[in-house]
């Protein structure tokens, strides 16, 4: 087990390095750098000004050199610009101070400085990840129990009236994209046009104080979409288990239906949905973009969009690392969880 986790961590590191290198090369293509320079300096800069702006700030060094600096295995550049000012990576591309560090990469714990938000990247990622985490937590709290209950109820008597009703419902919610259901919810429950005004159509204040009123709609919008999907998976899995030999044996022995479902079928039926739920977490992290924009909730998805559209190199790299970690971490959990759910699987 220890070796397994260690190996997985190694894979995670390797993936993160490969991915960040690709992102790094892409964001350091010259047209992207030009966009960055104009964004930071001035939109009307001439080509010569762009070149000197980038040169003064170390962007035109070799790509490997810059990547090494970002990782922290090479010392950060210190360049005396043609305007006479000395700038360095370790002072956020600003004037070098006496006490500036020599190395300032990820290894040293410096994730860089966001050009879009003018803040340290680590701080932005933590703040926004926490906000999306809050959203995700409540989504999972609503989505998983309701999806499992619906799926099991539908799957325990395949083809029954209950199954048909629940399955239709699940298909409807899963087939409705968030940008449709979100807009409908806002129109129906929040606007003066309909007049219900039960909830708030904006989750801006939920970033500070989440209440039922301002946070329910975004949570429900995401949950409904994922819920239908997981419920369908659970139903299929449950229905399959219910036809198994040992369930028939249990029924013949006269075990009550409730006991069969809860004690004999449930554990086996949960293996497939468990994987699906774990896969939903990375999807939530990036897939909430639509809902975050719709409800003006500034979480991780919003940061991703902002970083990409402004070619914010350091921020984009950090975002991709977070992405890798979340994906691989949830897969690790799902693999380990398997062992507990299915005694036949061993991790060596």
């Amino acid at each position, binding site marked *: 087990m220890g070796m397994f986790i260690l190996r997985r961590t190694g894979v995670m590191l390797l993936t993160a390095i490969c991915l960040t290198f690709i992102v790094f090369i892409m964001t350091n293509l010259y047209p992207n750098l030009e*966009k960055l320079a*104009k*964004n930071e*300096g*001035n*939109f*009307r*800069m001439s080509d010569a*000004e762009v070149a000197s702006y980038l040169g003064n700030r170390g962007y035109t060094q070799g790509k490997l050199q810059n990547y090494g600096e970002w990782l922290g295995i090479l010392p950060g550049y210190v360049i005396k610009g043609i305007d006479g000012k000395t700038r360095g990576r370790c002072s956020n591309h*600003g004037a070098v101070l006496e006490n500036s560090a020599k190395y300032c990469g990820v290894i040293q714990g410096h994730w860089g400085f966001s050009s*879009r*938000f*003018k*803040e340290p990247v680590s701080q932005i990622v933590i703040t926004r990840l926490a906000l999306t985490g809050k959203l995700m937590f409540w989504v999972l709290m609503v989505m998983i129990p309701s999806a499992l209950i619906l799926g099991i109820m539908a799957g325990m008597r395949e083809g029954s009236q209950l199954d048909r009703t629940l399955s239709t419902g699940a298909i409807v919610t899963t087939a409705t994209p968030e940008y449709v259901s979100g807009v409908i919810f*806002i129109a129906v429950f*929040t*606007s*003066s046009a309909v007049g219900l*005004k039960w909830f*708030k*159509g*904006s989750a*801006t*204040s939920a*970033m500070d104080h989440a209440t039922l009123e*301002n946070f329910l709609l975004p949570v429900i919008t995401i949950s409904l979409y994922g819920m239908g999907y997981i419920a369908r998976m659970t139903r299929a899995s449950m229905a399959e288990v219910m036809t198994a030999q040992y369930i028939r044996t249990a029924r013949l022995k006269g075990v009550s239906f409730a006991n069969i479902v809860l004690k004999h079928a449930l554990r086996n039926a949960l293996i497939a949905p468990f994987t699906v739920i774990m896969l939903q977490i990375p999807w939530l992290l990036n897939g909430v973009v639509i809902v975050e*924009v*719709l*409800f*003006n909730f*500034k979480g991780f998805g*919003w940061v991703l969009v*902002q970083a990409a*559209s*402004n070619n914010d190199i350091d921020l984009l790299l950090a975002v991709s690392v977070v992405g890798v970690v979340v994906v691989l971490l949830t897969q690790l959990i799902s693999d380990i969880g398997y062992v507990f759910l299915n005694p036949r699987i061993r991790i060596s």
Partner: protein
Amino acid sequence: MTQDNNFMHPAAEMYASEEKAGKLDRREFISRATALGVSTVAAYGLLGLDAPAAAGGHAKMGGTIRMQMDVKAMKDPRTHDWTQISIFSAGWLEYLVEYNSDGSFKPMLLSSWEANSDATQYVLKIREGVKWNNGDDFTAEDVARNIIGWCDKSLEGNSMAGRMASLVDGDTGKAREGAIVVIDASTVHLNLLQPDITIVPGMADYPAQIVHKSFTVETMVSNPIGTGFMLPENLEVGVKASIVRNEGFEWWGYAAGKGGYVDRIEFIDYGNDPATHMAGFEAEEFDLNWESIGEFVELYDALGLVKSQVASGATLVVRPNQDHAPYENKMVRQALAMAVDNEVLTELGISGLGVAADNCHVGPIHPEYNPDVRRAPFDPVKAKELMDASGHGDFEHELRSLDSGFWKDTCDSVAAQLRAAGIKVKRTLMPGSTFWNDWAKFPYSATNWNHRPLGTQVLGLAYRSGEAWNEFAWNNAEFDALLAQANSLANADERRIVMGKIQALIIEEGVTCQPYWRYVQRHHVEGLVGVDMHIAYLPQIYKWGHAA
């Protein structure tokens, strides 16, 4: 409190007679007279009227006001390209002069100013008793230093240099030797190269915030030294920002009766989609919005919000950039302008919230506007003939714009009319975060322009050869000469003759399609005073308050 001197510029009396003869409307008169240094009270007096009392007297001290607004990164005031940036720094950085929606100019950190008879010399008097919030006295040296800073063309993106052009040395790109002279602790003389009537309006524009001698861009938020009554509390770009009262600081405006009512102002970012703004308004997450646009004006009205509306010189230009083929060809540009009906764009682009314009970026709100010069007539058939004759009949134009709001609606309507005329056009929609990175460089796109008091001002900023904001990439020596001539004529009747030529030249060259003059409006909840929409979006937050 307004200017308390009895200075009366001779031209002001002439303007008053023009106003009485019906040649000028009242707004134009107030705007021109006060720009020459006549106090607002005296200007109204020339017309035989009493100056309107400020509504601020009905406000109470204290409270918080929350506003929906784009929260942008802070930069040097001189390089501000959005009023949204200035409104945040207006908490602690103030202006020498302020421009009001009635067209008048009121002194702020100045106590008065005077122009000589041909507007080549200005005497600026500094307000007594103003202190920086670090305890330093505010003196003539501060004013001179800031004006010299405005003249610095070497600072990338400094738009103040264009406004101060008559003080700048063309060779060095800095303030001219002897242009700005400190006479004593409370007097500064400006000696202009040529007569310039826009220098005081230029000082009232949003990038003209006065900074302390210790100012650096890096520390402007962390160490906010200024003369204003508030301080920055927090700034999260793209999310929210807040400014709070500087407790214990004896702001000059309290004694001068300026106001300074609220304890705290919060700016909350809701992105570019007005539907999200509306959801925020309905959720009662803010008290007033930045601006209400398009069909949302009616929707907000229906919510029972208070509307504050003012007719302005704010507009949109749907323009080709002459650095790109085929727009260096005059016939192509003329055809693009000729193929669209500006009345239709007013109706479809801004829901009729404005009046149709004549493609020359000077309008009835400007004193020197020549109403006889009209656009090239709307004629789709002739437009197509011109386009074919230019040899670019089959060229597919790509019209870029923001992906929402009146930018999108107007450009959609432009594209539809071009297609109806038989001209091929493709639409490209871009989000604000990428569009504004290159707004001045796109071959064919739409940009909104704010109102400015005089007709010559936008022309100087955006149409003069080589200016930072010349998004048309228009270089025309004849135009530059005419504009310089117009800027030297204090008499608006004389200036109107030149302006007529300028308008005709811009139309003839097909520089832009400039379809309408917009009403600008915002909405707010009941119980607020002084938060009215400003004709030029200027940040007069000291007027904001809760009704007593």
